[in-house]
């Protein structure tokens, strides 16, 4: 049931430190939370209450983006796509956010010093930046593969470079660097002889499915950060079930069994 994971989650009332736009529809929300900043792990998420009233009713889940333990803050990077994120976009320093955290499991990093591939599509870059931030101090080589529809929508490049990662970019329209989907960039790197211990991926479902197929073809372990509609985020509503590969019909909960899954477990062709 994954209760060991969500175990220590609770509702926090967190002061907004900043809510700035790094470009496009995206916003970075920085929250003061020394305890959480010290405790949360890359891949985990938080569940944010957006509305003062009862509408929108449910919280909205966001992966943790950057953690500043020294400064006692952490941040979220979100795409303003609807009503909840629209309300969040208007928060200002001095406001307080009702945040349920920490939630979910986190990225496992196997022992060894080999390079890690971080393959991101769009806003899926968020948990991978968190992972890079955690791994960078160990000196392990990181190679970020960033995909976007077009160059303008590219996200996280500066983060990865700042953390010392190698960065390669692919765009669907060829407006920058590799022309094509990001899984074809991964394939190209593998083809030219790059080697990775693990592939980590986050982005739209089709992109993660394609990346995990490439990784499987190369015999590489692959971990993905999944998304599903969530009511609770802590394992009791059973709303976020994802069907997994098994002989019988079997589901796992994205919120407590995930959001990080071994890609081999996932049944991608779910409607």
């Amino acid at each position, binding site marked *: 049931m994954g209760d060991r994971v969500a175990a220590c989650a609770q509702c926090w009332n967190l002061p907004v430190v900043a809510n700035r736009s790094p470009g496009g529809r995206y916003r970075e929300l920085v929250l003061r939370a020394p305890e959480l900043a010290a405790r949360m792990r890359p891949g985990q998420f938080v569940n944010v*209450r957006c509305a003062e009233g009862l509408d929108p009713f449910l919280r909205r889940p966001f992966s943790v983006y950057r953690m500043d333990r020294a400064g006692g803050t952490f941040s979220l990077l979100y795409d303003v796509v609807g009503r909840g994120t629209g309300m969040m976009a208007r928060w200002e320093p001095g406001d307080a956010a009702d945040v349920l955290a920490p939630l979910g499991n986190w990225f496992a990093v196997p022992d060894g010093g080999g390079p890690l591939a971080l393959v991101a599509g769009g806003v899926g870059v968020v948990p991978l930046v968190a992972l890079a931030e955690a791994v960078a101090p160990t000196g392990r080589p990181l190679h970020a593969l960033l995909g976007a529809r077009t160059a303008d929508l590219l996200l996280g490049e500066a983060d990865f470079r700042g953390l010392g990662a190698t960065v390669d970019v692919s765009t669907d329209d060829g407006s920058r660097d590799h022309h094509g989907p990001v899984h074809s960039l991964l394939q190209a790197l593998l083809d030219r002889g790059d080697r990775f211990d693990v592939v980590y991926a986050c982005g739209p479902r089709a992109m993660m499915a394609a990346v995990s197929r490439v990784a499987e073809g190369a015999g590489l372990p692959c971990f993905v950060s999944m998304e599903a509609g969530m*009511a*609770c985020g802590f394992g009791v509503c059973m709303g976020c079930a994802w069907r997994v590969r098994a002989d*019988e019909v079997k589901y796992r909960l994205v919120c407590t069994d995930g959001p990080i899954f071994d890609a081999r477990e996932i049944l991608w062709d779910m409607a």
Partner: protein
Amino acid sequence: MTASGTFGYGREMAEMVDLNRLGALVVKTLQLEARPGNPSPRICETPAGMINSIGLPGAGIEHFLAEDLPFLRRYETPVILSVAGCRVEEYEALVRRADECEGIAAIELNISCPNVKQGGLAFSVDPAATAGVVSACRAATRKPLIAKLTPNVTSIAAIARAAEDAGADAIAAINTILAMAINVRTRRPRIATNVGGLSGPAIRPVAVRMVWEIASAVRIPVIGMGGIMNAEDALEFILAGATAVAVGTATFRDPAAALGVIDGLEAFLREQGIARIRELVGAVEVWR
């Protein structure tokens, strides 16, 4: 109390919420065998509420009795088992099994789940079918039996009376209201079973009305639920005739919602100088 299906089997909540403070803990509905539940998407949000079609996934009653009940028995809070089956015999078998177990304070018959193919809803839309399940289960246990009813009926009072006459010790109401939402771009229903059950504050006024109708029609206690977010909401149900109330969907927004209701009720009683909450049960002053 907690509403079935919104608090897991207690375990998931134990480190977020002090389980000992709950009036009672109703676990997620159990069946005889393990079930995977319905395909996803299983939930979607609606104005001041949500639709779910979870489909009663679970490892089955034996797994619960072996793995989860011992954990819950470490707490003082009464545990109420919720059970469902496809046929009367399954309800009977579940109740008989639960009857043998210590640490189960009462058994709730979920005859109102809209999200399973057979059984579920089919029973509690009909007074005779309701009476059939309840009387079979009555013969199978001495533990208190709670009949949980569906709001998807023309007259819930008639169903409640049938359950009472068949030997139910209490009525729980309401389960979710059948509902549908459609993604207009994909043209797909937002729930993989097309139709699911609506819960949350949106349905509270309907639930209060039904609890009032039931309380006016039966002598056994009524457990009220449907969209309770805070003490004031709970008081509406109590004034309408509920002896106890359960918190469901609110827990998803605030894991400690049930405790908030308890605290709020205590504060209200103090403020109003009311000694016991019993004085408020059914105390609504209707207009004539």
